C-alpha cells in the first residue's frame, strides 16, 4: 500500500489500483455521512477531484492518487458511508482505477514514509 500527502492510499494488483482515504484522514474527518464516488468509465489525471466525502461538519474533496480510468466504484458506501470510519483501509475503499502509469504508484510514500510524514503535521 502506498500513500499521498493528501491522505489517500493506493493498493496495486496488476494494473488495477484500489484507492481510498487513510485511517488518519478518516479520523480527522469524523463521522462520515455521505460519499460521492466517481462514475465508472471516468478518466482521471493524478490530482484530479475523484470523490467527495462528507462528515456531519463539512464536505471534503478526495483527489485521484494516480492517473487512469475508473473501472469500479464502491457502491456499498451509498448505504453505509460509515464504513469509511470503520475500515478506511479495507471495506471503505472508494474506487478501482486501471492505472495508465504504474510508476506513479511507486513514486508515492510507503507506510513508513507516510507515518514519518504524519509526525510532521
Amino acid at each position: 500500500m502506498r500513500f499521498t500527502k493528501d491522505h489517500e492510499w493506493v493498493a496495486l494488483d496488476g494494473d488495477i489500483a484500489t484507492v481510498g482515504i487513510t485511517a488518519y484522514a478518516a479520523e480527522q474527518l469524523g463521522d462520515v455521512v455521505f460519499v460521492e464516488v466517481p462514475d465508472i468509465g471516468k478518466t482521471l489525471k493524478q490530482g484530479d477531484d475523484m470523490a467527495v466525502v462528507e462528515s456531519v461538519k463539512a464536505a471534503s474533496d478526495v483527489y485521484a492518487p494516480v492517473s487512469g480510468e475508473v473501472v469500479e466504484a464502491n457502491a456499498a458506501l451509498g448505504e453505509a458511508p460509515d464504513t469509511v470510519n470503520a475500515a478506511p483501509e479495507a471495506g471503505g475503499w472508494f474506487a478501482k482505477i486501471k492505472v495508465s502509469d504504474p510508476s506513479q504508484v511507486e513514486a508515492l510514500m510507503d507506510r513508513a514514509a507516510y507515518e514519518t510524514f504524519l509526525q510532521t503535521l
Partner: protein
Amino acid sequence: MSQSDLKKTPLYEAHVAAGARMVPFAGYAMPVQYRDGVLKEHLWTRESAGLFDVSHMGQARLRGVAPLSAFEEVTPGDFIGLLPGRQRYSVLLNRKGGVIDDLMASRPDDDGLFVIVNGACKDGDFAYIADELVPQISIERLEDRALLALQGPKAVDVLKTHIPECAGKVFMDSWATTGWGVDVLISRSGYTGEDGYEISVPGHAAERIWIALLEDERVRPIGLGARDSLRLEAGLPLYGHDVDETVSPVEAGLTFAVSKKRRDAQDFPGAARIARELAEGPSRVRVGLKVLDGPPAREGAEIADADGQVVGVVTSGGFAPSLGHPIAMGFVPPALSAVGTALKVIVRGKAGTAQVVAMPFVPNRYVRKV
C-alpha cells in the same frame, strides 16, 4: 488570524485536557468536538445531557433609570412588560429593519437588564447600543464571566444536585442564585431544542464548575460542531448565516419577537418595513428543507423550483444526526414556502430532491410547566 492571536475562554485548558479539537471561532480558540466526535456528542445531548462552553458570547448588564423602556428603542420586543425572573429572545434592529444580532435579555434580579449576545457580534452590538442609548443607560460588559450551557433531557436532574431550585423553573425563567460557592445567573433555556440551562459564572470558578458537572456520568462535554447540528434540527437560525443585517425578523420567521404592542406603536428601528412585510408579506421567507436524495446541501447551495429555475439559497444545512438524513434552511419566495412544496437543491452541479417541511425538524422539548 493566527492561532496565537486567538482569545481563550477560562475553560481552554480543560478542553485541551479532554482531547478537544480546537478551532478559531468568533476570535476565540473553541472546541469543535471532543474525542467522541460530532455524531455521538449530538445524540448524547438528545438522550442525556451535554455541557457546552459558550463563554465567547457577550454578557452585559444594562442599567439606568428605566433600562427596559430604553432597550425598546433598539429592539421590537415588549421589554417594558418583561417580568422579574423572566427572559426574552429578541433582535437588535438597524434603521432598515435588518437584524444586527439576535440576543437573550433577562431580569434575573433587580440589577437592570442582563443581556447575552453572539460572540462574533458582541463588540459591534455593544457599540451600537451605546451609540443609541448612552447616557439613558450604562453598559457594563461582564468579560470576567464564563457561560456554560447544560442541555438535554437529564439536564434538570443533574443541575438540581447543585442548584436545587432549578427543577421548579420553566422555559425562559431567569434567576440569580449561589452555586458552587459563587454567584451565578441562570436561565432555563438554550439553543439545542432540548430542555436545559445556560449558566453564567465568574471566570475564576468556571473550570471548577465545569469539572464538577462532568463528574456526573450523565454529562459529557459537547463541542461547537454538535451545537450547530442540534440548533439546525431545532429550526433555530444562526446569526451570520441564516440571519444578517439585510434580513428582517419577518423574513427570518422571527415575527414572534415583534410584540403585538410594538407592532401597533411602530416605535422601533425599521418599523415601516416590518409593518409593510406583515401586511403584504415579505419577498422571501426562511423555510426548512428535507433533502430526500443526494448529498447534504450546505450554506451557499442554490435552491431551484421544480422546473430548475433558481429561486433561493441555502443558508445552513447538513446531516441531521437525530433524523438520519440531510436537512437545510434557506430563503425562498413565499409562493414556494408551503409545507410539502417540492424543490431542488443544487450541490456540486447536481440537483437533489428536497421538500419544504415544518420547523423544528426535531420537536423541541422545552419545559413550559412544572
